[in-house]
């Protein structure tokens, strides 16, 4: 099977969606420039013309409103935000309008707008270029939220969002863009609300969100050598959320850890732990575990970034402790 990286898979999904349906349009700052938003929009304007691929003024708030209005007229807009931090100017449009449009119309009007939003990470992005507020958006009724970890998933979920009937947000972590995966050439779908078990295991269920998925898999591989057999689950979408797959796994392993690239307090990891405990609270063999970012804005300095973002070793050590083992020295 053919391999593509995450960025190119997005590019392919956008191109295919635009081919499949003339109502699909792409809006965002610089989407029609050569640089192409980390390669994800490259070539689209040449193939589909400047009407369907449009640069937008630096007006995030009305950009979201524009997409909503255009969707009423029958279009299926895809918005692109280069950083989630920039999108915060449009929270009103998202929370007071887009997410509640269907509800407020009593189901008579739907607004299939897809918001692609990139989370910055690394090279000193600093506090205004690196927020990952997936927990916020997963809290909002009426908005689908995907946080794909692989090139395969991002293509399938992007297509599913564009051709679905609800507003959807695709949260893409910058660190994933260069990662390759098998990506079918056809226009396939990855459904919302279907977690995937990325590794089978019997001792611990490790749920990993977004950019934590590759890390979780590496940690599982490492700890397998130490006799801890980890089942790694990638929920793929946060709304709707597949709680069944996770509960079934925990019912078997009796242990749960969640790795989440968001701030600890109020993280979606907490949501997952709470749900699981609401169902299986008395059956757990160990207290559940959360690995998140500290409750702090992102420091710019690479020295602090290294402490701020959990490493493979950090995750492995937390799990070792859960199993009563000695934590390994963090390789400096």
């Amino acid at each position, binding site marked *: 099977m053919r391999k593509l990286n995450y960025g190119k898979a997005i590019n392919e999904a956008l191109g295919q969606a635009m081919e499949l*349906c003339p109502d699909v349009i792409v809006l965002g700052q610089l989407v029609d420039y050569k640089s192409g938003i980390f390669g994800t929009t490259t070539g689209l304007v040449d193939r589909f013309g400047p009407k369907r691929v449009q640069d937008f003024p630096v007006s995030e708030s009305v950009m979201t409103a524009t997409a909503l209005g*255009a969707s009423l007229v029958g279009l299926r807009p895809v918005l692109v935000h280069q950083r989630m931090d920039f999108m915060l100017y449009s929270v009103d449009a998202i929370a007071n309008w887009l997410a509640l449009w269907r509800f407020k119309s009593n189901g008579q009007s739907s607004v299939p707008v897809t918001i692609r939003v990139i989370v910055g990470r*690394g090279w000193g992005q600093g506090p205004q270029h690196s927020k990952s507020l997936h927990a916020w958006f997963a809290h909002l009724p009426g908005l689908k939220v995907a946080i794909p970890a692989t090139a395969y998933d991002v293509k399938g979920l992007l297509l599913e969002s564009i051709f679905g009937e609800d507003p959807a947000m695709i949260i893409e972590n910058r*660190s994933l863009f260069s990662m390759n995966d098998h990506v079918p050439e056809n226009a396939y779908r990855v459904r919302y609300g279907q977690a995937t078990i990325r590794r089978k295991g019997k001792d611990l269920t490790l749920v990993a969100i977004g950019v934590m998925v590759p890390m979780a898999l590496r940690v599982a591989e490492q700890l397998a050598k130490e006799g801890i057999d980890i089942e790694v689950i990638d929920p793929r979408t946060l709304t*709707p959320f597949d709680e069944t797959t996770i509960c079934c796994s925990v019912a078997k392993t009796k242990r749960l850890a969640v790795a989440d690239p968001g701030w600890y307090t109020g993280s979606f990891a907490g949501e997952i732990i709470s749900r699981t405990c609401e169902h299986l609270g008395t059956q757990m063999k160990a207290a559940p575990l959360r690995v998140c970012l500290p409750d702090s804005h992102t420091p710019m300095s690479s020295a602090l970034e290294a402490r701020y973002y959990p490493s493979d070793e950090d995750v492995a050590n937390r799990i070792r402790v859960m199993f009563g083992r000695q934590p390994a020295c963090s390789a400096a």
Partner: protein
Amino acid sequence: MTLSHEEIRRRGDYRDLSIDGFDHETLKKLYYFMLRLRRCELALIDEYHPADEMRCPIHFCVGQEAVPASLSLLLKHDDYLFTHHRSHGYYLAKGAPMNELFAELYGKASGANGGKAGSQDISHPQSRVYGGAILAGALGIAVGAGFGIQLKNTSQIAVTGSGEAATEEGIFWEAINFASVKKLPVVFVCENNRYSTHSPQENRQPPGNISSRVAAFGVRTETLFGNDVIKVYAALKKAVERARAGEGPTFVEAFTYRWNGHVGPENDDHIGYRTADEIEFWKRNCPIALLERQLFDQGVLSQADKEKMSAEIDEEIADAFAFAKASPFPEDADWRRLNLSPSTPLADRLLKDDASAQFDQNQQYAIPGPY
């Protein structure tokens, strides 16, 4: 020239409304719509408290009938209309049914939105009229509808109605900027009634017309006495025609006045934010009275015609109340279905299911370049 509420009062009672050359059919329709809207609001006001059955905030629009009346004649079924919290005039202007409006206020299953939205968030998607209570929010969406229309290259237009306070929100200027850059088929109507709840415009905005600020963005504007329905109709007609012809957006600032308190049926004059004189002036110079005088004087309409119209309207209103009261409350509380679509027909048609591929985790994360 800068128009303002003070300037309008300084000039004294309005005597410039002229129906010369206007065809009688249009005049009668304008009049009928205004009368209908007025009587509808007054009836709702009367009914509001006695039984407290309309359990939602309502921003009545008595005194502000001219803009909705004009739009009711100018907009086609395919056009889009977006309204702010003071919604009833716009709702009716787009031809949405009165009985579904009333049922919505009563929180009934047969309401325009099955009781989910109420007066301030109402919409009637079949009639392409959409509202919401967050100031200026619907206005941004109107620009989006205009953008969509432009891309689809149809002859539809999008119109949005709001108060003067909406122009204090940043998104208003983002919307104006974008509509101007793209020359979108959008008409912005601003019913400048001087107040945002109890705060007068001069506390919140610099002197001068809002339209002059909008004009600086390259958008065509009109500024006018908004209780002269003939002038309002003419200005909006030109704006609608321009938009339909692909000549871009227009902003119309119409000076008008609300009779009631900001919200609810009572007046809020005990707050002391406006004078009795001011209120009296605007009541005397209300859009219905001004037009009616001409229609009667010039024999377009008689008192008997008016009574016939009123009777017909009152019947419609009585029916709407009866419909609303007789309708059941929504049983429905399938929260999931109300918030997310249960089906994905287009995705089902265009996309294929596929077995998940196997991801290889032994790769480096991207090391982002310097930016």
